[in-house]
């Protein structure tokens, strides 16, 4: 009861000792009935960085974000966000974080300006400061000319800029963005990410979920989620270095034939076609992967250029999710 009325003062930041993290979660779990949407997730999100959640739909990205901003109570585990307990101190936390929902959640029957004004008032920003901040945001997000237009009539990119402007209105220290670019064209996505880097430079921590690989690479750090489990995390570089596979790129004149032949390699993790090229992933414990691939192609009588390459983000994503698949199948096979 009291927590809905009162504004219990935020507890003193307790986590100064353990480095500078905006978010620390341990064993975060959320069940909906029998379904485990988020399963035992640990997170360490450093302050002032852009942290990505990469995963397909239904991997638990939204549920995790909602637990971190206090909208959902974890079934077990806990999260410290900006030094506050995301469950207990949710109300105090709300003044410090900005949250951008997956679905456009501002008022479509209000204009851009009215929406921003409403948000400014709800955060009780003093009038003069509010006006200044609104002008600043309108011009930063190129919305000044359209400020009297109703939000419902805006394009996907404009809506998303408005939503980001609204989420940053009260200068939050932490931004939680739930698939902010899912309804936005590529050039708008570029602009959007420029804005995110600007915010990070100004000191904000940003947690952004996405299912675009190219966006994930832009993050300082990212976590890959698969069916509610965090399967990998780290910087894009370190993820590539620690990947469990070798990545071989094959350039063949007859890519179709090469594709068929390579499918026969035992314990192949993945085989991806990129136009005339093929990317083959082979488990790390196989000593000379390039030789295996070239031998296979030679046996099939296919001429090709073969080379081992550094894994890109898609390779990493495929590797961690496929390897997990293999493991769980192995476990299922072991079970009596």
């Amino acid at each position, binding site marked *: *009861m009291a927590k*809905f*009325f009162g*504004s219990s003062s935020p507890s003193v930041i307790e986590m100064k000792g353990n480095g500078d993290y905006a978010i620390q979660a341990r064993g975060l779990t959320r069940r909906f009935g029998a379904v485990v949407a988020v399963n035992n997730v640990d997170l360490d999100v450093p302050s002032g960085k852009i942290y990505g959640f990469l995963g397909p739909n239904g991997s638990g990205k939204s549920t995790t974000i*909602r637990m971190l*901003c*206090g*909208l*959902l*109570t974890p079934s077990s585990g806990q999260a410290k966000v900006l030094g506050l307990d995301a469950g207990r101190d*949710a*109300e105090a936390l*709300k*003044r410090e*974080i900005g*949250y951008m*929902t997956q*679905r*456009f*959640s*501002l*008022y*479509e*029957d*209000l204009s851009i300006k*009215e929406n921003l004004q*409403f*948000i400014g*008032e*709800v*955060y*009780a920003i003093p009038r003069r400061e509010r006006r200044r901040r609104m002008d600043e945001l309108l011009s930063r997000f190129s919305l000044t000319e359209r400020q009297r237009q109703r939000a419902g009539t805006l394009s996907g990119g404009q809506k998303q800029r408005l939503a980001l402007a*609204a989420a940053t209105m009260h200068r939050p220290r932490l931004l939680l963005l739930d698939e902010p670019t899912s309804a936005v064209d590529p050039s708008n996505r570029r602009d959007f990410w420029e804005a995110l880097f600007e915010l990070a430079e100004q000191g904000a921590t940003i947690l952004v979920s996405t299912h675009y690989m190219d966006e994930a690479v832009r993050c300082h750090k990212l976590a890959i989620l698969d069916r509610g489990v965090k399967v990998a995390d780290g910087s894009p570089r370190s993820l590539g270095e620690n990947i469990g596979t070798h990545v071989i790129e094959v350039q063949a004149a007859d890519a179709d034939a090469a594709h068929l032949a390579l499918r026969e390699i035992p314990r192949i993790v993945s085989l991806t076609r990129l136009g005339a090229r093929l990317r083959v992933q082979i488990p790390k414990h196989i000593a000379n992967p390039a030789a295996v691939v070239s031998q296979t192609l030679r046996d099939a009588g296919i001429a090709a250029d073969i080379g081992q390459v550094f894994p890109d983000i898609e390779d990493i994503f495929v590797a961690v999710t496929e390897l997990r698949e293999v493991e769980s199948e192995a476990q299922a096979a072991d079970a009596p």
Partner: protein
Amino acid sequence: MKSLIRIFAIMHKELLQLSRDRLTFGMIVGIPLIQLLLFGYAINTDVRNLTAAYVDEADSHLSRQLIADLGATQVVALRQRVASVEELVQLLDAGAVSVGVAIPDDFDRRVISRDRPALQLLVDGTDPIILGVAEGLAAIPLQFDSQSGLQPRQRMVEVRNYYNPERRSAVNIVPSLVGVVLTMTMVLFTGVAIVRERERGNLELLINTPVRTVELMLGKIVPYIVIGLIQLVIILAVGRVIFSVPIMGSEWQVLLAALIFISANLSLGLLISTVAATQFQAMQMTFFFFLPSILLSGFMFPFEGMPEIAQGIAEVLPLTHFNRLIRGIVLRGVDVSMMMQEIFALAAFTAVALTLAVLRFSKRLD
């Protein structure tokens, strides 16, 4: 201070949205006007011009005088003269007339000797109101001309009609209609208020801001209080102009009673809004509440005539208490201090509904 800013923010936003929602805006003015005209004209218990036919077997000076007098009352419209009582009965059976007047051939003698009823009224008793009117007709003292030397019969009981001397239904209906219209619109408007935000996805953003539940509820209620008062003014003003329903008591007391009644309905609407999952559900719940309000509150039928269980239910409905208040103040000119128990009942209802709504509303999604 910050709390006030946030309440104001919600109010301001509600008003902006309201001014852009033409349907709702139309309902604010349209519902009271349509209801007022419908109920004011259609629901009419002072029945006039009942279709009637008559058979005059006496065909005397006296009987013709009687027919003329009956016609002059305007209670019945004697459209048709038939030859026999059988034909009269046929017309009644067919539903062509509601009342039949049968004058026997020895009418003059019966009038003079006064030993038996002089004439018969055949009445379609399926409608109790018509029956009542016809019975009233039987009591009309017929003024026969002085030559016949008859004095009108003296009635046993004299009825004195207070507050509504002309017996017009509009006098009874217009003030109560304030309550009916406010119940319908106020519960509906706030009933969909929070559900709509949930359906459109706005709620997830809203509950992530520092706005408190109480602030959100108050911010949603206050604009509608103003709208409710506008509706009150529309009904009473139009009631006065078209139906000549005067306000006997103090206008301020009408306002006070309406204010607390509006709050009760808005609080109930918010409670519905926290329970309903969709706007459609909210509307269904509103009508689930609206129907007993109309039937049991004394708007349609006298409260005293209802069985005890119905009276018990009626006591829980805000409209029952408001009907007593508004009829008292508007029609009888009673001071509100004499009806404080009704005010208390409405205040208690508001407090309970609002508390439940605040308790039920959670700033979480689980």
